[in-house]
């Protein structure tokens, strides 16, 4: 079934239900004309029919519903009072709508009946000072009917009905709708769906889970029995159970496209009202989400979409002036990532200016100005989610009607999600929503360690490595207790799952690590990859994610739980939380600093913040220093007695070359006396094709950080300082160190020559 057909089906089902309700409501309204709630519900129903039929291109239906809506709107606003005449007119309208829906179901069009008379009646009813002053027979003011009718619409209400039901549907009106649709519709699709309480589906789901477990137990017996009848039956049971499980799970899942499908209309209406040109694009429509989550994000999403069109995108003139196509682009994206569903709403509009936000926030007294200036642009952007904050310069009738972005955030957080905003002035704004996939089914890799199984969401998985014993001892190197693996020339930080989970702390130092095969799962968390060593890599499986109980909510290492085929519970690892727990991934990822930094760089303002891999080491006297990892080729350890001398310099033999050593303690000012040791830690640096060894006291860590250089020092070997891992860390300027060391290395420019002469 094509998408549009699906929408039509849904429309038919919903509208038919709505109409039945309308009949009752209208009659009830006659008894209690003052019931505002009843009126509103009637209004909403007609309004929905009008909206959807317009979207689906049922012009007749839309026109008829429209006049009804207008009249109801007046009634609701108290401009009119309900008279029996109005009531019967409305009931006739309901019948007319029902008739047209019938046409839609049977022929795919809303029929060719002439509704001008009915429309005229409504126009007259609405235009009349009051119903009483406009008796049914009074001719309507010409102006209103002009567009509507050539027939005198004077005939009272029932007349159009009679006409309509008598009017046959001429064959030529059946223009759209393939024969296939018509065939199927003949058996009345409206009756093909039923509404089921979600609670019942939950219960079914649990029962199916139980059935699966019972099935598994039965299957275990098949291994020990010869009874062929039993074997055949259990085989059948197996198949049926699997199918049943799939079926029941499907009942709760819905593609996000179901919510999105109404956005083209929303956007179209809005852009017309605002005289903007907007193209809406969707990616990942088929991303499935649990029904309850779909329901919960409907309103926040709508609000964000409206906001983007209203505030985000500029008018065509403005866009052309800014060198962009006149037509704005609104992109909706959804995808699974890291056991979560990401939904992004991005526009290529004017973006959010953090300076303007600062000014606004200060003006509104949300925060002291001084604090605002200290906040990063990224943090300032997130102020749009603060209560009582409207970024709109002017309140239009589209946005700024009470529901603010704070409500959006509250609603998303209610279902355990997060929302983040990224924006580049002049280039656009992206709102990123992450919601957990409670109950969603995800493919996962099952691993085991220390006798337990754990599931790793497949989306975080990059590759699997198997490092054989001998190779392991060589290719897994230690940087001050932190293991790294050389993966195609890049250093991959490693962590053993046993260690993360607190089962075995000194895995890498153990004999096992040296001789056994090491199995590594390479994972991606945030923008950082790391290797997770496990005891066994089992298999991939589709798992049903179940949330952790409240008592365990604080465990960021786990994303949830699942039930394995044998009925046992297994924990799902949260790759991001895991990486953070092992200090492999920066904890401050929430604010998406990488993007903020990019933005900062892009605008050329204090471009001191950069995200980079850093090696952190210590010199004598606990002086913490950092150098970019990219500058380092190796980390080595040499026994002190291998140090030889040439002239004034200390050297070691290294890879058949003579590597000069620089004792950083002596170059960097303010270091204490180095303690005498048997081994020295050397950071090998390549300068112009030649190895240089920087002797340090201790190698502390390797991490990816976006650092903000806080104090720049001109000259000297320290280029600046930054706070890294909560400690002040000096950034070493390696070039300056080499210059000062006077080891007489040529400039990088002379490198080729240097290699040629072999020093």
């Amino acid at each position, binding site marked *: 079934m094509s998408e549009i057909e699906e929408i039509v089906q849904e429309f038919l089902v919903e509208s038919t239900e709505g109409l039945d309700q309308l009949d009752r409501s209208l009659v009830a309204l006659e008894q209690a004309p003052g019931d505002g709630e009843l009126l509103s519900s009637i209004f909403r129903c007609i309004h929905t029919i009008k909206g959807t039929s317009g979207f689906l291109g049922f012009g007749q239906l839309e026109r008829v519903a429209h006049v009804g809506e207008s009249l109801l709107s007046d009634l609701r606003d108290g401009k009119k009072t309900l008279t029996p005449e109005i009531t019967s007119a409305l009931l006739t309208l309901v019948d007319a709508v029902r008739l047209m829906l019938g046409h839609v179901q049977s022929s795919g069009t809303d029929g060719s009946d002439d509704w001008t008379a009915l429309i005229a009646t409504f126009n007259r009813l609405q235009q009349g000072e009051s119903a009483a002053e406009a008796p049914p027979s009074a001719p309507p003011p010409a102006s209103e009917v002009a567009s509507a009718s050539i027939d005198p619409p004077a005939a009272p209400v029932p007349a159009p009905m009679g006409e309509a039901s008598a009017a046959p549907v001429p064959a030529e009106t059946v223009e759209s709708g393939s024969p296939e649709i018509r065939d199927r519709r003949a058996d009345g699709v409206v009756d093909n769906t039923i509404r089921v309480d979600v609670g019942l589906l939950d219960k079914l*789901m*649990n*029962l*199916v*889970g*139980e059935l699966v*477990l019972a099935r598994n137990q039965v299957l275990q017996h098949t291994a020990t029995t010869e009874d062929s009848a039993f074997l055949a039956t259990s085989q059948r049971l197996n198949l049926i159970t699997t199918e049943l499980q799939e079926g029941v799970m499907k009942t709760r899942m819905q593609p996000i496209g179901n919510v999105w499908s109404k956005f083209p209309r929303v956007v179209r209406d809005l852009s017309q009202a605002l005289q903007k040109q907007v193209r809406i694009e969707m990616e990942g429509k088929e991303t499935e989400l649990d029904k309850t989550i779909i329901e919960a994000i409907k309103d926040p999403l709508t609000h964000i979409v409206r906001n983007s069109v209203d505030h985000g995108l500029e008018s065509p003139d403005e866009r052309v002036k800014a060198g962009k196509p006149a037509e704005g682009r609104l992109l909706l994206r959804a995808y699974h990532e890291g056991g979560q569903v990401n939904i992004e709403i991005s526009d290529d509009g004017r973006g959010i200016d953090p300076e303007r936000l600062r000014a606004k926030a200060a003006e509104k007294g949300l925060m002291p100005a001084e604090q605002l200036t200290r906040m990063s642009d990224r943090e300032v952007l997130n102020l749009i989610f603060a209560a009582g904050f409207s970024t709109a310069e002017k309140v239009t009738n589209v946005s700024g009607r009470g529901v603010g972005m704070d409500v959006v955030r509250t609603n998303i957080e209610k279902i355990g999600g997060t929302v983040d905003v990224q924006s580049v002035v002049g280039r656009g704004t992206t709102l990123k929503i992450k919601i957990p996939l409670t109950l969603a089914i995800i493919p996962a890799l099952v691993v085991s360690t220390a006798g*337990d199984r754990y599931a790793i969401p497949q989306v975080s998985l990059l590759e699997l490595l198997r490092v054989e014993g001998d190779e392991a001892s060589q290719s897994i190197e230690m940087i001050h207790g932190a293991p790294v693996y050389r993966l195609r020339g890049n250093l991959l930080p490693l962590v053993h799952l046993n260690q993360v*989970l*607190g*089962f075995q702390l000194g895995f890498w130092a153990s004999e096992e690590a040296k001789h056994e095969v090491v199995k590594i799962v390479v994972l991606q968390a945030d923008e950082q990859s790391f290797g997770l060593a496990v005891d066994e890599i089992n298999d991939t499986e589709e798992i049903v994610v*179940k949330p*952790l*109980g*409240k*008592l*365990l*909510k*604080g*465990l*960021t*290492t*786990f994303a949830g*739980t699942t*039930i394995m085929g044998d*009925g*046992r*519970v*297994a*924990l799902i690892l949260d790759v991001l*939380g895991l990486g*953070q*727990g092992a200090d492999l991934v920066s904890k401050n990822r929430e604010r998406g600093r990488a993007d903020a930094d990019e933005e900062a760089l892009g605008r050329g303002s204090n471009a001191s913040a950069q995200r980079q891999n850093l090696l952190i080491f210590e010199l004598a006297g606990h002086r913490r220093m950092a150098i970019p990892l990219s500058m380092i080729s190796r980390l080595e350890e040499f026994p002190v007695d291998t140090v030889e001398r040439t002239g004034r310099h200390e050297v070691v033999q290294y890879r058949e070359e003579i590597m000069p050593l620089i004792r950083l303690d002596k170059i960097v000012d303010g270091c204490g006396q180095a303690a005498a040791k048997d081994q020295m830690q050397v950071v090998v640096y390549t300068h112009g094709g030649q190895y240089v060894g920087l002797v340090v006291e201790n190698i502390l860590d390797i991490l990816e950080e976006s650092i903000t250089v806080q104090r720049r020092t001109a000259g000297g070997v320290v280029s600046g300082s930054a706070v890294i891992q909560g400690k002040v860390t000096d950034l070493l300027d390696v070039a300056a160190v080499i210059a000062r060391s006077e080891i007489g290395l040529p400039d990088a420019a002379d490198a080729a020559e240097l290699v040629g002469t072999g020093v």
Partner: protein
Amino acid sequence: MSESTQYCTFLVDDLYFGLEVMKVQEVIREQQMTRVPLAPATVSGLINLRGQIVTAVDLRVRLGLPRRPAEKSPMNVVVRTEDGAVSLMVDEIGDVIETSAEMQERPPETLAATARSMITSVYKLPGRLLLALDIDAVLAIEPAGAGGR
């Protein structure tokens, strides 16, 4: 409080506890358990109760009592809470007992503070004392290591 209350009773170590019957969903034998690394010590693991995942809390650990001897298999008292079912691991299940307000007394001050905060009252039954558990207090466990480390 003058009305009688029905208590589901159980033994933990040599203490005789009771929980209002209406709060108990069911009582089950020892289940296959999946341990949760990094979780608070009171959480012994997760059990699969007909497709529902239930967190199991060891009352012995929670009450600061000595660990259950290995040869003794625990029983699970599954309790309904607002956030789904939680299982309390106890040593032995007793009868359902009807209590009356006359038998009720406040827990003595001499009880260890942790235990006292979880016991709402003491019922003087013939021959033994029944300690009424406050399930909310029992489950008010510090969330697992806030950093997940």
